[in-house]
């Protein structure tokens, strides 16, 4: 198992290289090169200072070089093994010394004028929180309701759910998000939820748990955070939930009519145990398989949701970076999101091996 994991991790490297290469080249091809619009803006200002700034950037990032060279340089920058480089900012000369381990450097955002690592340290936890919160809810709801629908096959709940699941899956997130924020977080309609952000302004003054303070009841930091997360999470989960519940229902039905269930019944096993002991575990297998697809689609979905609900996560960061053609942020974002995606595929594969004894990675 361990050797399999190591092999998979090694195989990720070419994939990550390919991914970043793809994005890098696309950006390199665009007019204004890598670093894009920011340099263009500076160029248009055309003041002495702006030109100096532009020259600095060009030397700092070597933007006039061949894109392949630039990509190699960027790779070296993010790799954990390499040289220590001294850049002479006046001449653009580089000196390479001390080959060995180093901290991967994700670069510096041109638009935000901050280290990318620093920006990610703020944005990544937000996106991860959103997804880590949503995934278990999706799976729990989908599994329970899927089993319920399968057991009441053909009854009202089942018929209604199978029609509405397709509708739910077809509902565009951008519409649901806009309608939720428009109707439920708006002074003109129902101001039940906060329209933006992850916590209220005064949240950092609150106690962690809700309770009574001198000013009366206070919702506390945790509740405040949950209150802010409700609409985004609802928005993020319904689509994947529809897919998974439908899958669970068919999977349970398929398994309940299988031969081994008949065997179990012929042994005298109770219906309860037939369902939870025999059909349940087998029915989960397809859900684990699609997990590899669910996680990247959740990340993509969180991009839209972070944009709509103004949540400062990776998605919103990406939209902003792309608009500003902030090359370091876009590339680092691709790297991190790609890594997350590949890891989630690996986790799904490993989970599958745990759940299904027929699959082994020895």
């Amino acid at each position, binding site marked *: 198992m361990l050797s399999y994991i190591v092999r998979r991790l090694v195989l990720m490297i070419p994939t990550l290289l*390919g991914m970043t290469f793809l*994005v890098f080249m696309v950006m390199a*091809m665009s007019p204004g090169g890598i670093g894009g619009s920011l340099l263009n803006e500076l160029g248009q200002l055309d003041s002495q200072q702006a030109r100096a700034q532009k020259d600095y950037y060009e030397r700092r990032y070597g933007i006039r070089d061949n894109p392949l060279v630039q990509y190699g340089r960027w790779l070296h920058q993010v790799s954990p093994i390499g040289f220590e480089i001294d850049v002479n900012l006046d001449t653009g000369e580089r000196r390479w010394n001390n080959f060995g381990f180093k901290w991967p450097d994700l670069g510096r955002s041109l638009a935000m004028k901050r280290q990318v690592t620093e920006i990610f340290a703020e944005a990544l936890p937000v996106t991860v929180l959103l997804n880590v919160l949503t995934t278990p809810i999706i799976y729990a709801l989908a599994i329970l309701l899927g089993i319920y629908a399968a057991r009441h096959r053909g009854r009202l709940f089942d018929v209604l759910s199978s029609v509405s699941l397709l509708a739910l899956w077809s509902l*565009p997130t*951008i519409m649901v998000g806009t309608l939720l924020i428009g109707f439920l977080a708006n002074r003109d309609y129902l101001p039940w939820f906060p329209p933006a952000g992850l916590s209220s302004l005064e949240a950092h003054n609150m106690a962690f748990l809700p309770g009574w303070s001198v000013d009366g009841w206070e919702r506390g930091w945790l509740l405040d955070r949950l209150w802010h997360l409700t609409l985004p999470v609802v928005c993020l989960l319904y689509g994947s939930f529809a*897919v998974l519940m439908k899958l669970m229902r068919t999977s349970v039905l398929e398994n309940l009519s299988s031969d081994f269930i008949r065997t179990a019944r012929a042994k005298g096993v109770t219906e309860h145990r037939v369902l939870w002991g025999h059909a349940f575990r087998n029915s989960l297998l397809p859900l684990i398989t699609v997990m590899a*697809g669910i996680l990247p689609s959740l990340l993509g979905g969180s991009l*839209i949701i972070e944009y709509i609900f103004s949540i400062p996560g990776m998605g919103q960061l990406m*939209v902003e970076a792309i608009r500003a053609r902030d090359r370091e942020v876009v590339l680092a974002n691709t790297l991190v999101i790609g890594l997350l995606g*590949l890891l989630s595929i690996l986790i799904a594969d490993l989970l599958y091996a745990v759940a299904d004894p027929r699959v082994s990675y020895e």
Partner: protein
Amino acid sequence: MSEIDALIPHPGMPAPEPTALVQPPPRDQARQTLLGMVIQRTFANTGAVIGIAWLGVLAVGAVGAPFLASSYPLVVKTTDGQWFFPLFRYLTAVDVMLPILMILAIALVSLRRFSARKRVVTFFLAGIVVATTCLLLIHPQRREVFSEHRELQAAGKVQWSISPPVPYSPRDRQRDLGYPTYLPPALGGPHWMGTESSGSDVFSRMIHACRIALSIGFIATGIAVVIGVIVGGLMGYFSGVIDLLGMRLVEIFSAIPTLFLLLTLVAVMPPEWNPYRLYAIMVLIGLTGWVGYARFVRAEFLKLRKQDFVQAAIACGLPLRSVLFRHMLPNGVAPVLVEASFGVASAIMFESVLSFLGVGLVDEPSWGQMLGEAIGAAGSFKWWMAVFPGLAIFFTVMAYNLIGEALRDAIDPHSQRSTML
């Protein structure tokens, strides 16, 4: 042993006539092709029929958009007895081409005497002829002067005129004329679905956006299917190194969320491309969406390759092209059709998300772009800008999904497994 042999009797019955009682299957059923059967079963599905009906409505909107919603009257008679046909001055080649092709298509579908192949060929040949003629002959007036007719009317020079049902063009921004922006919808009023930020009519924009939604769906999916089938087919057929490399490529594309990739690609698009932005976005959605088909076709080809009829074709010394495209592809293509119909839905969704985020279409009317303007800067919420375009996206996506589900059931009634992802 002897016991058993002794037990087996030979009563010496006359050999019965085998054919007398076996009824041959009815002729019609035997002659029905797989495709015909699939179409028939699909049309038996209520959901699919509803989906197709909605797409029909959209198609009418897409084809007839310039005649249904335009600021220019169809006919104007001035008080001094002059006749004008302002609408026709602004019709583009595509505007003329689409209705002709649609009428042609309807005519060919209702002509039952010709074979399906003949009808398809006729349609394509006629299509090429119509398209070239239109492109060569029609040069519309470039600069749109919306106020022309209104000024004429204000001056009292119009005796009578016939306007389209929605008398506003999608880009007729009346804000400059002091017209109220963000007018809420009013049935029976001038703007049934209200107006948007620049005073343009929402209903008119909705109608004109049909064309974009439909064409993006079809063309992007077409590109994705072609790439996917080729890459997947090669991977599945050759396996080995090609498969390994191909799978890395597939992995690259499936590990990055499509939306991320698409955003990057769209954002770095050079501004010179802006006149062709719509087409560029179609291509980009196609370029990022092929992975699913490739995986699918690869798996199918891996299965098919081991089957006897493919082995036989190879053993006969048929060229690779023939083995791949004549023997393997038709057997693996039916499920791709199902996937493609879900693919159209997701292509439409992607376009609307891009436009919603403000990196998609610039000047074209798009449902996603309108939805993106529903929440104003100050947090004010224009519900009509969210509800109408949102529902349009929803219905269209739902329609394709319904058709996809029906197709899947029609192709393989036993498979209940969902491949909605």
